[in-house]
């Protein structure tokens, strides 16, 4: 198996200790950094799909993302500084009044592994924090908002409303979290909804490309 395929396989099964060395070997073999990155992105897509299908669980996803992150560290100096490998910046956060972040973190990892540069605001973020982040970061193509409580669904709506009213543009808004549904996402005028982290990465790519 070519080293680059091994990188993909080992990302999928979350071998955090093995992946960095393999990435180095792939580079030594002459593989291009961008292709190695793509192999890892492909690996994470497999991981996302398996998670969506209920074949793997949160820990497997976390170690796969960690393995990829370790691989990317090795790759970083070799990746051109230009934006050609990036799908743009994604601002992500959990809405005001809500402190849940496990789901948001997974979504962040998956969207990040799909090729976005992530700006993670953390939890309990008021609408103006999202707006400030959109203003203060370059090339924002996606805003992702998470809400885990029925009591914070109104805050999700408030956030989407405020972002729309700010007049800022050039990005899409994706929402999610356990009590969020496609119907609710439509009602509050979000561009997309996804039920889980694997699907979120796919949706993110699709709406930003559209």
């Amino acid at each position, binding site marked *: 198996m070519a080293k680059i395929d091994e990188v993909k396989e080992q990302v999928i099964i979350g071998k955090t200790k093995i992946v960095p060395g393999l990435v180095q070997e792939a580079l030594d073999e002459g593989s291009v950094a961008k292709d190695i990155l793509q192999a890892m992105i492909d690996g994470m897509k497999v991981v996302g799909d398996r998670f969506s299908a*209920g074949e793997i669980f949160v820990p*497997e996803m976390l*170690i796969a993302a960690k393995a990829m992150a370790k691989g990317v560290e090795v790759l970083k100096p070799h990746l051109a500084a230009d934006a050609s490998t990036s799908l743009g910046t994604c601002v992500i956060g959990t809405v005001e009044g809500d*402190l849940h972040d496990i789901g948001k973190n997974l979504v962040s990892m998956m969207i990040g592994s799909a090729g976005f540069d992530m700006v993670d605001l953390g939890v309990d973020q008021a609408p103006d924090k999202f707006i400030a982040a959109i203003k203060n970061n370059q090339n924002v193509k996606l805003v992702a908002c998470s809400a885990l409580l029925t009591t914070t669904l*109104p805050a999700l709506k408030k956030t989407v409303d405020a972002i729309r009213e700010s007049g800022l543009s050039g990005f899409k808004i994706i929402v999610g979290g*356990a009590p969020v549904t496609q119907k609710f996402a439509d009602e509050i005028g979000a561009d997309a909804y996804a039920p889980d982290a694997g699907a979120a990465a796919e949706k993110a790519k699709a709406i930003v490309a559209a």
Partner: protein
Amino acid sequence: MLTKKQNLLETIRGGKPDRFVNQYEAFDCSPSAPFGMIFSDPVMDASARPVIGGPPVKDSWGVTKAWPANVPGAFPVHDQEHKVIKDITQWEKVVKAPTLDYPQSEWDKCKAAQLEGIDRNELFVTVFGAPGIFEQVHYLMGMDDCLIAFYEEPEAMKELINFITEWKLKYAKLVCDNFAPEVIFQHDDWGSHKSSFLSPDMFEEFLLEPYKKWYGYYRQRGVQIIAHHNDAYSANLVPAMIEMGIDIWQGCVSTNNVSELIKKYGGKISFMGDIDNGLVDREDWTQELVAKHVRRACEENGKLYFIPCITQGGKGAVYDGVYDAISVEIDKMSKEMFK
């Protein structure tokens, strides 16, 4: 008419209940306690709880908990500075179990305040327990670190889990000596609404034996019913729940397909829930909405091995009126279905 107690036993034993068990009615033995169950004892009371809008506090395990004014509940703080376990291989150096050493007089006060006046004919002496073993682990280390450590440092995780379990066994002895509970209502959330946190294999590897020990001890001390709260998808964990000795899984959310589970496992375990907070406990709730969900749950699941109930882990709801609205609809369904 059967007493609340008899009716519950008939329901979970496949007998002849004369109505639906209405949510937490049979466990509601301690009116002044937060969830109507026995809640206060010297060990639990010694652990600080944050108040809404107040400053963060450290509980008796050293976990920092915050409750900002604008959020509906308290929350463990897990930034690098606050998490108790920063390196799981070093857990022994940082984890200190709370003392269990209190004078009997303090237990006696709690007994007097909570046991007297319970109508033991109608109600089970029910002791509330939280957190569970898994929760205690992720409170100490944060969820992400915790889930990763199951892979990266399994031995250290087993040691930590064992340490927590041994503490819980000693605490369980005090609870049994003093309250002689008939029902233990224990929390431990094991997943999101779509999947369990751990695969069934990993769950069994780390949690089955500790829980068997813990719940087995309660059983040995005369506890009649182990009710376990877990408001998540966990249909894949039901075989393990049965093996642990859980009699009632409270909190089974609708994504579990409860009616299927009843067909498959009814008689070995009962299911309490299927009325999701996420669906009915909303700002825009109405009696009609509640009625629709209660009807679906009762009709689909039937009269045995099922207790219609809000999925949250204690009586009440986030929005005023929702819990009582559910109770009203359950009574209506009883009139209709138990003629």
